[in-house]
Protein backbone atom coordinates (compact mmCIF):
# COMPACT_ATOMS: atom_id res chain seq x y z
CA UNK A 1 0.00 0.00 0.00
CA UNK A 2 1.16 3.46 -0.85
CA UNK A 3 1.71 5.74 2.10
CA UNK A 4 -1.15 8.26 2.16
CA UNK A 5 -0.61 11.42 4.19
CA UNK A 6 -2.55 11.31 7.49
CA UNK A 7 -6.03 12.81 7.19
CA UNK A 8 -6.54 16.31 8.47
CA UNK A 9 -8.93 16.66 11.42
CA UNK A 10 -10.95 18.93 9.20
CA UNK A 11 -10.78 20.09 5.62
CA UNK A 12 -12.90 22.55 3.62
CA UNK A 13 -12.53 22.60 -0.18
CA UNK A 14 -14.13 25.34 -2.23
CA UNK A 15 -16.98 25.93 0.20
CA UNK A 16 -19.74 28.25 -0.96
CA UNK A 17 -22.87 28.90 1.09
CA UNK A 18 -25.66 30.97 -0.41
CA UNK A 19 -28.84 31.93 1.37
CA UNK A 20 -31.73 32.55 -0.99
CA UNK A 21 -33.21 36.04 -1.04
CA UNK A 22 -33.14 39.19 -3.13
CA UNK A 23 -30.28 39.62 -3.51
CA UNK A 24 -29.04 36.21 -2.29
CA UNK A 25 -26.55 36.33 0.60
CA UNK A 26 -23.16 34.77 -0.06
CA UNK A 27 -22.42 33.86 3.55
CA UNK A 28 -19.37 31.83 2.39
CA UNK A 29 -17.84 32.68 -0.96
CA UNK A 30 -15.20 30.05 -1.64
CA UNK A 31 -13.39 28.82 1.47
CA UNK A 32 -10.43 26.41 1.52
CA UNK A 33 -9.08 25.44 4.90
CA UNK A 34 -7.21 22.58 6.50
CA UNK A 35 -7.05 22.01 10.26
CA UNK A 36 -4.48 19.38 11.27
CA UNK A 37 -4.86 16.95 14.14
CA UNK A 38 -3.81 18.62 17.37
CA UNK A 39 -4.16 22.20 16.15
CA UNK A 40 -5.64 25.13 18.07
CA UNK A 41 -6.91 27.74 15.64
CA UNK A 42 -8.93 30.95 15.85
CA UNK A 43 -11.37 32.05 13.18
CA UNK A 44 -11.71 35.76 13.64
CA UNK A 45 -13.78 38.36 11.86
CA UNK A 46 -16.41 41.06 12.26
CA UNK A 47 -20.06 40.29 12.88
CA UNK A 48 -21.79 39.01 9.76
CA UNK A 49 -18.57 37.92 8.08
CA UNK A 50 -19.70 34.27 7.91
CA UNK A 51 -17.97 32.72 10.94
CA UNK A 52 -20.99 30.94 12.36
CA UNK A 53 -22.00 29.72 8.94
CA UNK A 54 -18.49 28.28 8.55
CA UNK A 55 -18.74 26.57 11.94
CA UNK A 56 -22.13 25.06 11.04
CA UNK A 57 -20.76 23.73 7.76
CA UNK A 58 -17.63 22.36 9.48
CA UNK A 59 -19.77 20.74 12.16
CA UNK A 60 -22.20 19.06 9.70
CA UNK A 61 -25.07 21.08 11.10
CA UNK A 62 -25.58 22.68 7.70
CA UNK A 63 -24.69 21.68 4.15
CA UNK A 64 -22.65 23.93 1.84
CA UNK A 65 -24.17 25.05 -1.46
CA UNK A 66 -20.93 24.02 -3.17
CA UNK A 67 -17.71 22.36 -2.08
CA UNK A 68 -16.55 19.45 0.03
CA UNK A 69 -16.16 19.04 3.77
CA UNK A 70 -13.99 16.27 5.20
CA UNK A 71 -14.05 15.46 8.91
CA UNK A 72 -11.28 13.12 10.00
CA UNK A 73 -10.85 12.19 6.33
CA UNK A 74 -14.54 11.39 5.75
CA UNK A 75 -16.34 13.12 2.91
CA UNK A 76 -19.63 14.46 4.25
CA UNK A 77 -21.19 15.40 0.91
CA UNK A 78 -22.57 11.95 0.23
CA UNK A 79 -23.86 11.35 3.73
CA UNK A 80 -27.54 11.51 4.62
CA UNK A 81 -28.94 13.18 7.69
CA UNK A 82 -28.58 10.07 9.84
CA UNK A 83 -24.92 9.56 8.92
CA UNK A 84 -24.21 13.21 9.64
CA UNK A 85 -25.82 12.84 13.06
CA UNK A 86 -23.57 9.85 13.65
CA UNK A 87 -20.50 11.92 12.68
CA UNK A 88 -21.50 14.58 15.21
CA UNK A 89 -22.15 12.02 17.93
CA UNK A 90 -18.65 10.60 17.61
CA UNK A 91 -16.27 12.99 15.86
CA UNK A 92 -17.34 16.52 16.74
CA UNK A 93 -17.78 18.49 19.94
CA UNK A 94 -19.58 21.83 20.10
CA UNK A 95 -19.25 24.74 22.49
CA UNK A 96 -21.72 27.61 22.09
CA UNK A 97 -21.83 31.18 23.28
CA UNK A 98 -25.15 30.52 25.09
CA UNK A 99 -23.86 27.28 26.72
CA UNK A 100 -27.14 25.48 25.92
CA UNK A 101 -27.24 23.42 29.10
CA UNK A 102 -30.54 21.70 29.90
CA UNK A 103 -32.03 23.41 32.97
CA UNK A 104 -33.60 20.44 34.70
CA UNK A 105 -30.44 18.35 34.59
CA UNK A 106 -27.41 18.27 36.87
CA UNK A 107 -23.97 19.16 35.55
CA UNK A 108 -23.17 15.45 35.50
CA UNK A 109 -26.22 14.57 33.39
CA UNK A 110 -25.64 17.52 31.06
CA UNK A 111 -22.12 16.29 30.38
CA UNK A 112 -23.40 12.72 30.10
CA UNK A 113 -25.63 13.93 27.24
CA UNK A 114 -22.44 14.15 25.20
CA UNK A 115 -22.42 10.33 25.20
CA UNK A 116 -26.19 9.85 24.97
CA UNK A 117 -26.52 9.43 21.22
CA UNK A 118 -23.67 6.99 20.83
CA UNK A 119 -25.65 4.51 22.89
CA UNK A 120 -23.26 4.52 25.86
CA UNK A 121 -24.65 2.84 28.97
CA UNK A 122 -25.85 5.18 31.74
CA UNK A 123 -23.26 3.97 34.26
CA UNK A 124 -20.42 4.53 31.86
CA UNK A 125 -21.85 7.92 30.89
CA UNK A 126 -21.85 9.04 34.50
CA UNK A 127 -18.32 7.77 35.07
CA UNK A 128 -16.86 9.48 32.04
CA UNK A 129 -18.89 12.65 32.65
CA UNK A 130 -17.52 12.81 36.19
CA UNK A 131 -13.98 12.45 34.86
CA UNK A 132 -14.58 15.21 32.31
CA UNK A 133 -16.04 17.52 34.95
CA UNK A 134 -13.07 16.87 37.23
CA UNK A 135 -10.82 17.63 34.27
CA UNK A 136 -12.41 21.07 33.74
CA UNK A 137 -12.13 21.83 37.46
CA UNK A 138 -15.75 21.20 38.47
CA UNK A 139 -15.22 18.06 40.55
CA UNK A 140 -17.14 19.76 43.37
CA UNK A 141 -20.11 20.69 41.22
CA UNK A 142 -21.23 17.34 39.79
CA UNK A 143 -24.80 17.49 41.08
CA UNK A 144 -25.29 21.23 40.73
CA UNK A 145 -27.96 22.44 38.33
CA UNK A 146 -27.18 25.07 35.70
CA UNK A 147 -28.98 27.80 37.64
CA UNK A 148 -26.70 27.12 40.60
CA UNK A 149 -23.56 27.77 38.53
CA UNK A 150 -21.81 30.97 37.41
CA UNK A 151 -21.46 31.79 33.71
CA UNK A 152 -17.85 30.62 33.66
CA UNK A 153 -18.79 27.38 35.39
CA UNK A 154 -21.63 26.77 32.95
CA UNK A 155 -19.25 27.16 30.04
CA UNK A 156 -16.89 24.69 31.71
CA UNK A 157 -19.75 22.19 31.93
CA UNK A 158 -20.43 22.79 28.22
CA UNK A 159 -16.76 22.24 27.40
CA UNK A 160 -16.72 19.01 29.41
CA UNK A 161 -19.76 17.91 27.40
CA UNK A 162 -17.94 18.77 24.14
CA UNK A 163 -14.90 16.62 24.97
CA UNK A 164 -16.44 13.76 26.94
CA UNK A 165 -16.75 11.54 23.83
CA UNK A 166 -13.15 12.30 22.67
CA UNK A 167 -14.07 13.96 19.37
CA UNK A 168 -11.70 14.49 16.43
CA UNK A 169 -12.38 18.18 16.64
CA UNK A 170 -14.02 20.67 19.01
CA UNK A 171 -15.78 23.65 17.44
CA UNK A 172 -16.37 26.61 19.75
CA UNK A 173 -18.55 29.51 18.59
CA UNK A 174 -17.75 32.64 20.62
CA UNK A 175 -17.15 30.59 23.80
CA UNK A 176 -16.32 33.70 25.82
CA UNK A 177 -18.97 35.91 24.24
CA UNK A 178 -21.24 35.83 27.31
CA UNK A 179 -18.51 35.96 29.96
CA UNK A 180 -16.73 38.69 31.90
CA UNK A 181 -13.03 39.13 31.23
CA UNK A 182 -11.83 37.02 34.18
CA UNK A 183 -14.03 34.06 33.29
CA UNK A 184 -13.04 34.51 29.64
CA UNK A 185 -9.37 34.26 30.52
CA UNK A 186 -9.84 31.09 32.53
CA UNK A 187 -11.96 29.53 29.77
CA UNK A 188 -9.23 30.30 27.20
CA UNK A 189 -6.68 28.82 29.60
CA UNK A 190 -8.76 25.64 29.80
CA UNK A 191 -8.95 25.52 26.00
CA UNK A 192 -5.16 25.79 25.81
CA UNK A 193 -4.76 22.98 28.35
CA UNK A 194 -7.17 20.66 26.52
CA UNK A 195 -5.30 21.35 23.28
CA UNK A 196 -2.00 20.61 24.98
CA UNK A 197 -3.47 17.22 25.91
CA UNK A 198 -4.16 16.50 22.25
CA UNK A 199 -7.64 17.88 21.48
CA UNK A 200 -8.01 19.68 18.15
CA UNK A 201 -9.91 22.91 18.70
CA UNK A 202 -11.28 25.67 16.47
CA UNK A 203 -12.38 28.82 18.30
CA UNK A 204 -14.59 31.33 16.54
CA UNK A 205 -14.39 34.86 17.86
CA UNK A 206 -14.87 38.46 16.89
CA UNK A 207 -12.41 39.43 19.62
CA UNK A 208 -8.91 40.01 18.23
CA UNK A 209 -7.34 39.76 21.71
CA UNK A 210 -8.79 36.27 22.14
CA UNK A 211 -7.59 35.30 18.65
CA UNK A 212 -4.13 36.71 19.23
CA UNK A 213 -3.63 34.34 22.15
CA UNK A 214 -4.01 31.26 19.94
CA UNK A 215 -1.30 29.62 17.82
CA UNK A 216 -3.11 30.15 14.50
CA UNK A 217 -5.43 32.92 13.36
CA UNK A 218 -7.66 32.72 10.33
CA UNK A 219 -9.38 36.01 9.61
CA UNK A 220 -12.61 36.06 7.68
CA UNK A 221 -14.34 38.94 5.89
CA UNK A 222 -17.39 38.82 3.62
CA UNK A 223 -17.38 35.05 3.49
CA UNK A 224 -13.74 34.69 2.45
CA UNK A 225 -10.54 33.88 4.27
CA UNK A 226 -8.76 37.16 4.24
CA UNK A 227 -5.68 36.01 6.07
CA UNK A 228 -4.35 32.79 7.59
CA UNK A 229 -1.36 33.16 9.86
CA UNK A 230 -0.24 29.62 9.09
CA UNK A 231 -0.41 29.75 5.28
CA UNK A 232 1.04 33.24 5.41
CA UNK A 233 4.10 31.91 7.19
CA UNK A 234 4.43 28.75 5.17
CA UNK A 235 3.72 30.46 1.87
CA UNK A 236 6.17 33.19 2.62
CA UNK A 237 8.72 30.44 3.15
CA UNK A 238 7.96 28.45 0.01
CA UNK A 239 6.07 30.72 -2.35
CA UNK A 240 7.45 34.24 -1.94
CA UNK A 241 5.47 35.81 -4.81
CA UNK A 242 2.01 34.78 -3.48
CA UNK A 243 -0.61 37.12 -4.92
CA UNK A 244 -3.26 37.62 -2.23
CA UNK A 245 -0.94 38.19 0.68
CA UNK A 246 -2.37 41.64 1.59
CA UNK A 247 -4.17 42.96 4.64
CA UNK A 248 -1.81 41.97 7.41
CA UNK A 249 -2.83 43.53 10.70
Amino acid sequence: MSATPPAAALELRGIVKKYPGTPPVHALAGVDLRIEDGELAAIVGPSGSGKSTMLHVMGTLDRPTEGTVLVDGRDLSRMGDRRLSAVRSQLIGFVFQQFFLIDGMSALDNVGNGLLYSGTKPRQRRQRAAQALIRVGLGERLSHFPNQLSGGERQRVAIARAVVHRPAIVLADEPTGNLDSRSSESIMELIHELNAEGTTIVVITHDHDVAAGLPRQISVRDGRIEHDSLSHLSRRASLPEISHSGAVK
Partner: protein
Amino acid sequence: MRPTDGRVQKSRLRIGDVLGVGSTGLRTRKMRTALSALGVTIGIAAMVGVLGLSESSRADLSNKIEALGTNLLTVSPGGGFGGGDGVLPEDAVAKIRRIGPVDEVADVVELDVSVLRNDYVNENRTGGLTVVAADLGLLGTLNGEVDEGVWLNSASASYTNVVLGSESANRLGIESVDAGMQVFIGGEWFTVVGILDPFPLAADLDRSVLIGMDVATALFDSELNPSIVYLRTPSESLDAVRGVLAATVDPAEPDEVSVSRPSDVLEAEEAADSAFTSLFLGLGAVALLVGGIGIANVMVIAVIERRNEIGLRRALGATRAHIRRQFLTEALLLSTLGGLAGVGLGATVTAVYASTQEWEVVIPPEAAVGGFVAAVAIGAIAGLYPAMRAARLAPTEALRAA
Protein backbone atom coordinates in the same frame (compact mmCIF):
# COMPACT_ATOMS: atom_id res chain seq x y z
CA MET B 1 -9.38 6.11 21.30
CA ARG B 2 -11.69 6.65 18.36
CA PRO B 3 -11.43 4.27 15.44
CA THR B 4 -9.43 5.58 12.52
CA ASP B 5 -11.00 3.42 9.84
CA GLY B 6 -13.67 4.81 7.53
CA ARG B 7 -16.81 3.73 9.31
CA VAL B 8 -18.66 5.80 11.81
CA GLN B 9 -21.09 3.90 13.96
CA LYS B 10 -24.74 4.88 13.73
CA SER B 11 -26.18 7.29 16.25
CA ARG B 12 -28.03 5.28 18.81
CA LEU B 13 -30.33 6.09 21.73
CA ARG B 14 -30.88 3.28 24.20
CA ILE B 15 -34.50 2.27 24.92
CA GLY B 16 -34.12 3.10 28.59
CA ASP B 17 -32.76 6.52 27.67
CA VAL B 18 -35.77 7.27 25.46
CA LEU B 19 -37.87 7.23 28.64
CA GLY B 20 -35.37 9.39 30.48
CA VAL B 21 -35.16 11.89 27.65
CA GLY B 22 -38.93 11.90 27.20
CA SER B 23 -39.57 12.63 30.86
CA THR B 24 -37.08 15.48 31.49
CA GLY B 25 -39.51 18.07 30.22
CA LEU B 26 -42.24 16.71 32.49
CA ARG B 27 -40.04 16.49 35.57
CA THR B 28 -38.84 20.07 35.25
CA ARG B 29 -42.33 21.49 34.69
CA LYS B 30 -44.42 19.56 37.20
CA MET B 31 -47.29 22.01 37.49
CA ARG B 32 -47.75 22.23 33.77
CA THR B 33 -47.52 18.46 33.50
CA ALA B 34 -50.27 18.01 36.07
CA LEU B 35 -52.54 20.60 34.46
CA SER B 36 -52.12 19.28 30.96
CA ALA B 37 -52.73 15.70 32.05
CA LEU B 38 -55.87 16.82 33.90
CA GLY B 39 -58.02 16.97 30.78
CA VAL B 40 -57.36 13.34 29.97
CA THR B 41 -57.84 12.43 33.65
CA ILE B 42 -61.30 13.98 33.68
CA GLY B 43 -62.28 12.34 30.41
CA ILE B 44 -61.15 8.89 31.47
CA ALA B 45 -62.56 9.27 34.98
CA ALA B 46 -65.93 10.23 33.50
CA MET B 47 -65.96 7.21 31.22
CA VAL B 48 -64.78 4.72 33.83
CA GLY B 49 -67.09 6.24 36.44
CA VAL B 50 -70.13 6.14 34.18
CA LEU B 51 -69.46 2.59 33.09
CA GLY B 52 -68.73 1.53 36.66
CA LEU B 53 -71.85 3.16 38.05
CA SER B 54 -74.11 1.85 35.34
CA GLU B 55 -72.67 -1.64 35.77
CA SER B 56 -73.11 -1.39 39.53
CA SER B 57 -76.71 -0.21 39.28
CA ARG B 58 -77.39 -2.79 36.58
CA ALA B 59 -76.00 -5.48 38.87
CA ASP B 60 -78.30 -4.18 41.58
CA LEU B 61 -81.32 -4.21 39.26
CA SER B 62 -80.62 -7.67 37.98
CA ASN B 63 -80.25 -8.87 41.56
CA LYS B 64 -83.69 -7.41 42.18
CA ILE B 65 -85.13 -8.93 39.01
CA GLU B 66 -83.67 -12.25 39.97
CA ALA B 67 -85.12 -12.03 43.47
CA LEU B 68 -88.48 -11.08 42.06
CA GLY B 69 -88.42 -13.48 39.18
CA THR B 70 -89.55 -12.64 35.70
CA ASN B 71 -92.38 -15.17 35.89
CA LEU B 72 -94.51 -13.22 38.35
CA LEU B 73 -97.79 -11.75 37.11
CA THR B 74 -100.29 -9.58 38.95
CA VAL B 75 -104.00 -9.28 38.35
CA SER B 76 -105.85 -6.25 39.65
CA PRO B 77 -109.13 -4.48 38.98
CA GLY B 78 -109.44 -1.51 36.67
CA GLY B 79 -107.87 -0.69 33.42
CA GLY B 80 -110.97 -0.34 31.29
CA PHE B 81 -113.68 2.31 30.99
CA GLY B 82 -116.41 2.79 33.52
CA GLY B 83 -114.27 2.43 36.64
CA GLY B 84 -116.39 -0.18 38.39
CA ASP B 85 -116.18 -0.93 42.11
CA GLY B 86 -112.42 -1.60 42.13
CA VAL B 87 -112.51 -5.26 43.15
CA LEU B 88 -112.13 -8.58 41.43
CA PRO B 89 -114.77 -11.32 41.55
CA GLU B 90 -114.66 -13.28 44.79
CA ASP B 91 -113.83 -16.50 42.93
CA ALA B 92 -110.91 -14.95 40.98
CA VAL B 93 -108.26 -16.99 42.80
CA ALA B 94 -110.12 -20.25 42.24
CA LYS B 95 -110.52 -19.49 38.55
CA ILE B 96 -106.88 -18.62 38.10
CA ARG B 97 -105.84 -21.78 39.89
CA ARG B 98 -107.70 -23.70 37.26
CA ILE B 99 -105.49 -22.39 34.44
CA GLY B 100 -103.19 -25.32 33.73
CA PRO B 101 -99.61 -23.99 33.89
CA VAL B 102 -100.13 -21.69 36.90
CA ASP B 103 -97.90 -22.81 39.81
CA GLU B 104 -98.68 -20.52 42.68
CA VAL B 105 -101.46 -18.07 43.35
CA ALA B 106 -101.95 -15.76 46.33
CA ASP B 107 -104.15 -12.76 46.85
CA VAL B 108 -104.59 -9.89 49.26
CA VAL B 109 -107.80 -8.15 50.21
CA GLU B 110 -107.65 -4.52 51.17
CA LEU B 111 -109.73 -3.84 54.31
CA ASP B 112 -111.51 -0.63 55.08
CA VAL B 113 -110.08 -0.27 58.57
CA SER B 114 -107.09 1.61 59.93
CA VAL B 115 -104.11 0.66 62.04
CA LEU B 116 -102.93 2.65 65.06
CA ARG B 117 -100.00 2.37 67.44
CA ASN B 118 -102.40 2.59 70.39
CA ASP B 119 -106.04 3.39 71.08
CA TYR B 120 -105.67 7.13 71.78
CA VAL B 121 -103.78 8.14 68.61
CA ASN B 122 -105.88 10.02 66.12
CA GLU B 123 -106.65 7.79 63.16
CA ASN B 124 -105.48 10.37 60.67
CA ARG B 125 -101.98 10.36 62.12
CA THR B 126 -101.13 6.94 60.77
CA GLY B 127 -102.76 7.43 57.41
CA GLY B 128 -101.04 5.92 54.43
CA LEU B 129 -100.85 2.46 55.95
CA THR B 130 -103.24 -0.13 54.60
CA VAL B 131 -104.65 -3.12 56.40
CA VAL B 132 -104.88 -6.18 54.20
CA ALA B 133 -106.02 -9.74 54.63
CA ALA B 134 -103.39 -11.96 53.03
CA ASP B 135 -103.40 -15.44 51.62
CA LEU B 136 -100.94 -17.61 53.54
CA GLY B 137 -99.13 -18.42 50.28
CA LEU B 138 -98.35 -14.73 49.67
CA LEU B 139 -94.84 -14.76 51.11
CA GLY B 140 -93.85 -17.82 49.08
CA THR B 141 -95.39 -16.53 45.86
CA LEU B 142 -93.54 -13.21 46.16
CA ASN B 143 -90.23 -14.75 47.34
CA GLY B 144 -90.59 -12.47 50.36
CA GLU B 145 -88.41 -12.77 53.47
CA VAL B 146 -89.19 -12.34 57.14
CA ASP B 147 -86.91 -9.88 58.91
CA GLU B 148 -88.13 -10.43 62.47
CA GLY B 149 -90.43 -13.02 63.98
CA VAL B 150 -92.54 -15.30 61.78
CA TRP B 151 -95.02 -15.20 58.88
CA LEU B 152 -98.65 -16.12 59.49
CA ASN B 153 -99.59 -19.77 59.53
CA SER B 154 -102.96 -21.47 59.43
CA ALA B 155 -103.23 -21.34 63.21
CA SER B 156 -102.00 -17.84 63.90
CA ALA B 157 -103.99 -16.43 60.97
CA SER B 158 -107.27 -17.23 62.73
CA TYR B 159 -106.47 -14.99 65.69
CA THR B 160 -105.63 -11.38 66.24
CA ASN B 161 -102.10 -11.63 64.95
CA VAL B 162 -100.50 -9.24 62.50
CA VAL B 163 -97.35 -9.14 60.34
CA LEU B 164 -95.97 -5.69 59.41
CA GLY B 165 -94.56 -4.63 56.06
CA SER B 166 -91.11 -3.08 56.43
CA GLU B 167 -92.26 0.50 55.92
CA SER B 168 -95.26 0.04 58.21
CA ALA B 169 -92.99 -1.19 60.99
CA ASN B 170 -90.92 1.97 60.58
CA ARG B 171 -93.91 4.29 60.67
CA LEU B 172 -95.43 2.54 63.66
CA GLY B 173 -92.09 2.68 65.43
CA ILE B 174 -91.89 -1.07 65.98
CA GLU B 175 -88.43 -2.56 65.64
CA SER B 176 -88.84 -5.99 67.19
CA VAL B 177 -91.49 -8.54 67.97
CA ASP B 178 -90.03 -9.80 71.24
CA ALA B 179 -92.00 -7.67 73.69
CA GLY B 180 -95.38 -8.85 72.46
CA MET B 181 -96.04 -5.51 70.81
CA GLN B 182 -99.63 -4.73 69.98
CA VAL B 183 -101.27 -2.45 67.46
CA PHE B 184 -104.85 -1.26 67.30
CA ILE B 185 -106.60 -2.34 64.10
CA GLY B 186 -110.22 -1.40 63.42
CA GLY B 187 -110.92 -1.22 67.16
CA GLU B 188 -109.22 -4.49 68.09
CA TRP B 189 -105.81 -5.21 69.58
CA PHE B 190 -103.53 -7.32 67.37
CA THR B 191 -100.23 -8.88 68.42
CA VAL B 192 -97.27 -8.25 66.11
CA VAL B 193 -95.78 -11.65 65.28
CA GLY B 194 -93.51 -10.69 62.37
CA ILE B 195 -91.87 -7.91 60.40
CA LEU B 196 -91.10 -8.43 56.71
CA ASP B 197 -88.12 -7.42 54.57
CA PRO B 198 -88.95 -5.04 51.75
CA PHE B 199 -90.48 -6.74 48.72
CA PRO B 200 -88.36 -6.12 45.59
CA LEU B 201 -91.26 -4.65 43.68
CA ALA B 202 -94.31 -4.56 45.85
CA ALA B 203 -93.89 -1.28 47.67
CA ASP B 204 -97.64 -1.29 48.37
CA LEU B 205 -97.20 -4.34 50.58
CA ASP B 206 -94.28 -2.69 52.37
CA ARG B 207 -96.74 -0.01 53.45
CA SER B 208 -99.37 -2.42 54.68
CA VAL B 209 -100.04 -4.57 57.73
CA LEU B 210 -101.15 -8.13 57.04
CA ILE B 211 -103.67 -10.22 58.90
CA GLY B 212 -105.30 -13.56 58.20
CA MET B 213 -108.35 -13.95 55.95
CA ASP B 214 -110.37 -15.74 58.68
CA VAL B 215 -109.85 -13.15 61.36
CA ALA B 216 -110.70 -10.45 58.82
CA THR B 217 -114.08 -12.00 58.04
CA ALA B 218 -114.76 -12.77 61.69
CA LEU B 219 -113.93 -9.34 63.10
CA PHE B 220 -114.59 -6.94 60.25
CA ASP B 221 -117.23 -8.83 58.40
CA SER B 222 -115.35 -8.32 55.18
CA GLU B 223 -116.23 -9.57 51.76
CA LEU B 224 -113.26 -11.41 50.30
CA ASN B 225 -113.02 -9.86 46.86
CA PRO B 226 -109.28 -9.86 46.03
CA SER B 227 -107.71 -6.43 45.57
CA ILE B 228 -104.75 -7.97 43.83
CA VAL B 229 -103.77 -11.50 42.85
CA TYR B 230 -100.13 -12.58 42.49
CA LEU B 231 -99.33 -15.67 40.44
CA ARG B 232 -96.34 -17.52 39.11
CA THR B 233 -96.20 -19.58 35.98
CA PRO B 234 -93.32 -21.29 34.11
CA SER B 235 -91.58 -18.80 31.83
CA GLU B 236 -92.36 -20.71 28.65
CA SER B 237 -96.14 -20.52 29.21
CA LEU B 238 -96.06 -16.97 30.57
CA ASP B 239 -97.35 -15.31 27.40
CA ALA B 240 -100.13 -17.86 26.99
CA VAL B 241 -101.28 -17.47 30.60
CA ARG B 242 -101.06 -13.72 30.37
CA GLY B 243 -103.28 -13.82 27.29
CA VAL B 244 -106.16 -15.67 28.97
CA LEU B 245 -106.04 -14.21 32.50
CA ALA B 246 -108.43 -11.30 32.06
CA ALA B 247 -111.10 -13.37 30.35
CA THR B 248 -110.77 -16.14 32.91
CA VAL B 249 -111.19 -13.83 35.89
CA ASP B 250 -114.10 -11.83 34.53
CA PRO B 251 -115.54 -13.39 31.34
CA ALA B 252 -118.25 -10.72 31.21
CA GLU B 253 -115.99 -7.70 31.45
CA PRO B 254 -112.39 -8.67 30.69
CA ASP B 255 -111.56 -4.98 30.13
CA GLU B 256 -112.16 -4.38 33.84
CA VAL B 257 -109.21 -6.61 34.70
CA SER B 258 -105.65 -5.40 34.49
CA VAL B 259 -102.76 -7.84 34.16
CA SER B 260 -99.12 -6.82 34.55
CA ARG B 261 -95.66 -8.20 34.99
CA PRO B 262 -93.70 -6.34 37.71
CA SER B 263 -90.28 -7.28 36.29
CA ASP B 264 -91.15 -5.29 33.14
CA VAL B 265 -90.85 -2.14 35.21
CA LEU B 266 -87.33 -3.02 36.35
CA GLU B 267 -86.32 -3.99 32.86
CA ALA B 268 -87.61 -0.70 31.56
CA GLU B 269 -85.57 1.00 34.27
CA GLU B 270 -82.54 -0.92 33.13
CA ALA B 271 -83.10 0.16 29.52
CA ALA B 272 -83.55 3.79 30.53
CA ASP B 273 -80.36 3.47 32.50
CA SER B 274 -78.40 2.39 29.46
CA ALA B 275 -79.69 5.36 27.45
CA PHE B 276 -78.40 7.57 30.23
CA THR B 277 -75.09 5.74 30.17
CA SER B 278 -74.60 6.42 26.46
CA LEU B 279 -75.21 10.11 27.06
CA PHE B 280 -72.56 10.28 29.78
CA LEU B 281 -70.16 8.15 27.77
CA GLY B 282 -70.54 10.69 24.97
CA LEU B 283 -69.74 13.51 27.40
CA GLY B 284 -66.72 11.56 28.64
CA ALA B 285 -65.54 11.13 25.07
CA VAL B 286 -65.84 14.87 24.50
CA ALA B 287 -63.84 15.53 27.68
CA LEU B 288 -61.23 13.06 26.48
CA LEU B 289 -61.04 14.75 23.09
CA VAL B 290 -60.60 18.14 24.76
CA GLY B 291 -57.92 16.56 26.96
CA GLY B 292 -56.14 15.29 23.85
CA ILE B 293 -56.28 18.72 22.25
CA GLY B 294 -54.85 20.12 25.50
CA ILE B 295 -51.92 17.74 25.29
CA ALA B 296 -51.31 18.56 21.62
CA ASN B 297 -51.39 22.24 22.52
CA VAL B 298 -48.96 21.88 25.40
CA MET B 299 -46.63 19.82 23.21
CA VAL B 300 -46.64 22.41 20.42
CA ILE B 301 -45.70 25.03 23.00
CA ALA B 302 -42.98 22.78 24.43
CA VAL B 303 -41.45 22.33 20.98
CA ILE B 304 -41.33 26.09 20.44
CA GLU B 305 -39.96 26.78 23.92
CA ARG B 306 -37.34 24.08 23.72
CA ARG B 307 -36.06 24.89 20.25
CA ASN B 308 -32.56 25.40 21.62
CA GLU B 309 -32.65 22.05 23.40
CA ILE B 310 -33.64 20.40 20.13
CA GLY B 311 -30.74 22.13 18.34
CA LEU B 312 -28.34 21.10 21.07
CA ARG B 313 -29.44 17.48 20.92
CA ARG B 314 -29.02 17.48 17.14
CA ALA B 315 -25.51 18.91 17.66
CA LEU B 316 -24.81 16.11 20.15
CA GLY B 317 -25.70 13.58 17.46
CA ALA B 318 -29.43 13.00 17.84
CA THR B 319 -31.12 11.99 14.59
CA ARG B 320 -34.51 13.32 13.55
CA ALA B 321 -36.00 10.02 14.67
CA HIS B 322 -34.48 10.48 18.14
CA ILE B 323 -36.04 13.93 18.48
CA ARG B 324 -39.39 12.64 17.24
CA ARG B 325 -39.23 9.78 19.72
CA GLN B 326 -38.42 12.14 22.57
CA PHE B 327 -41.48 14.34 22.08
CA LEU B 328 -43.77 11.43 21.26
CA THR B 329 -42.64 9.75 24.48
CA GLU B 330 -43.32 12.94 26.38
CA ALA B 331 -46.87 13.14 25.01
CA LEU B 332 -47.42 9.44 25.74
CA LEU B 333 -46.16 9.82 29.29
CA LEU B 334 -48.47 12.79 29.81
CA SER B 335 -51.51 10.92 28.58
CA THR B 336 -50.54 7.73 30.41
CA LEU B 337 -50.27 9.66 33.67
CA GLY B 338 -53.59 11.31 32.95
CA GLY B 339 -55.13 7.97 32.02
CA LEU B 340 -53.92 6.16 35.15
CA ALA B 341 -55.15 8.99 37.36
CA GLY B 342 -58.46 8.93 35.47
CA VAL B 343 -58.96 5.19 35.91
CA GLY B 344 -58.16 5.55 39.63
CA LEU B 345 -60.49 8.50 40.05
CA GLY B 346 -63.32 6.87 38.09
CA ALA B 347 -63.01 3.66 40.13
CA THR B 348 -62.99 5.60 43.40
CA VAL B 349 -66.06 7.60 42.44
CA THR B 350 -67.84 4.39 41.46
CA ALA B 351 -66.90 2.62 44.69
CA VAL B 352 -67.94 5.54 46.89
CA TYR B 353 -71.23 6.23 45.13
CA ALA B 354 -72.19 2.58 44.77
CA SER B 355 -71.55 2.05 48.49
CA THR B 356 -73.79 4.93 49.46
CA GLN B 357 -76.52 3.36 47.31
CA GLU B 358 -75.79 -0.02 48.89
CA TRP B 359 -75.12 -1.43 45.44
CA GLU B 360 -72.65 -4.14 44.73
CA VAL B 361 -69.48 -2.29 43.51
CA VAL B 362 -68.73 -3.35 39.94
CA ILE B 363 -65.79 -1.78 38.07
CA PRO B 364 -65.81 -3.46 34.69
CA PRO B 365 -62.23 -4.41 33.73
CA GLU B 366 -63.05 -3.56 30.09
CA ALA B 367 -63.78 0.00 31.18
CA ALA B 368 -60.54 0.31 33.15
CA VAL B 369 -58.38 -1.24 30.43
CA GLY B 370 -60.30 0.51 27.66
CA GLY B 371 -59.97 3.87 29.39
CA PHE B 372 -56.26 3.40 29.80
CA VAL B 373 -55.80 2.33 26.19
CA ALA B 374 -57.91 5.27 25.01
CA ALA B 375 -55.67 7.64 27.00
CA VAL B 376 -52.52 6.20 25.48
CA ALA B 377 -54.00 6.38 21.99
CA ILE B 378 -55.02 10.00 22.55
CA GLY B 379 -51.45 10.78 23.65
CA ALA B 380 -49.98 9.14 20.57
CA ILE B 381 -52.29 11.08 18.26
CA ALA B 382 -51.83 14.35 20.12
CA GLY B 383 -48.05 13.98 20.22
CA LEU B 384 -47.58 13.05 16.59
CA TYR B 385 -47.78 16.47 14.97
CA PRO B 386 -45.64 18.34 17.56
CA ALA B 387 -43.05 15.54 17.49
CA MET B 388 -42.83 15.69 13.70
CA ARG B 389 -42.43 19.44 13.86
CA ALA B 390 -39.63 19.09 16.38
CA ALA B 391 -37.89 16.51 14.22
CA ARG B 392 -38.15 18.58 11.06
CA LEU B 393 -36.54 21.62 12.66
CA ALA B 394 -33.15 22.27 11.02
CA PRO B 395 -30.31 22.18 13.58
CA THR B 396 -29.00 25.65 12.66
CA GLU B 397 -32.49 27.08 12.92
CA ALA B 398 -33.01 25.42 16.30
CA LEU B 399 -29.69 26.70 17.64
CA ARG B 400 -30.37 30.32 16.75
CA ALA B 401 -30.68 32.39 19.91
CA ALA B 402 -34.31 32.96 20.80
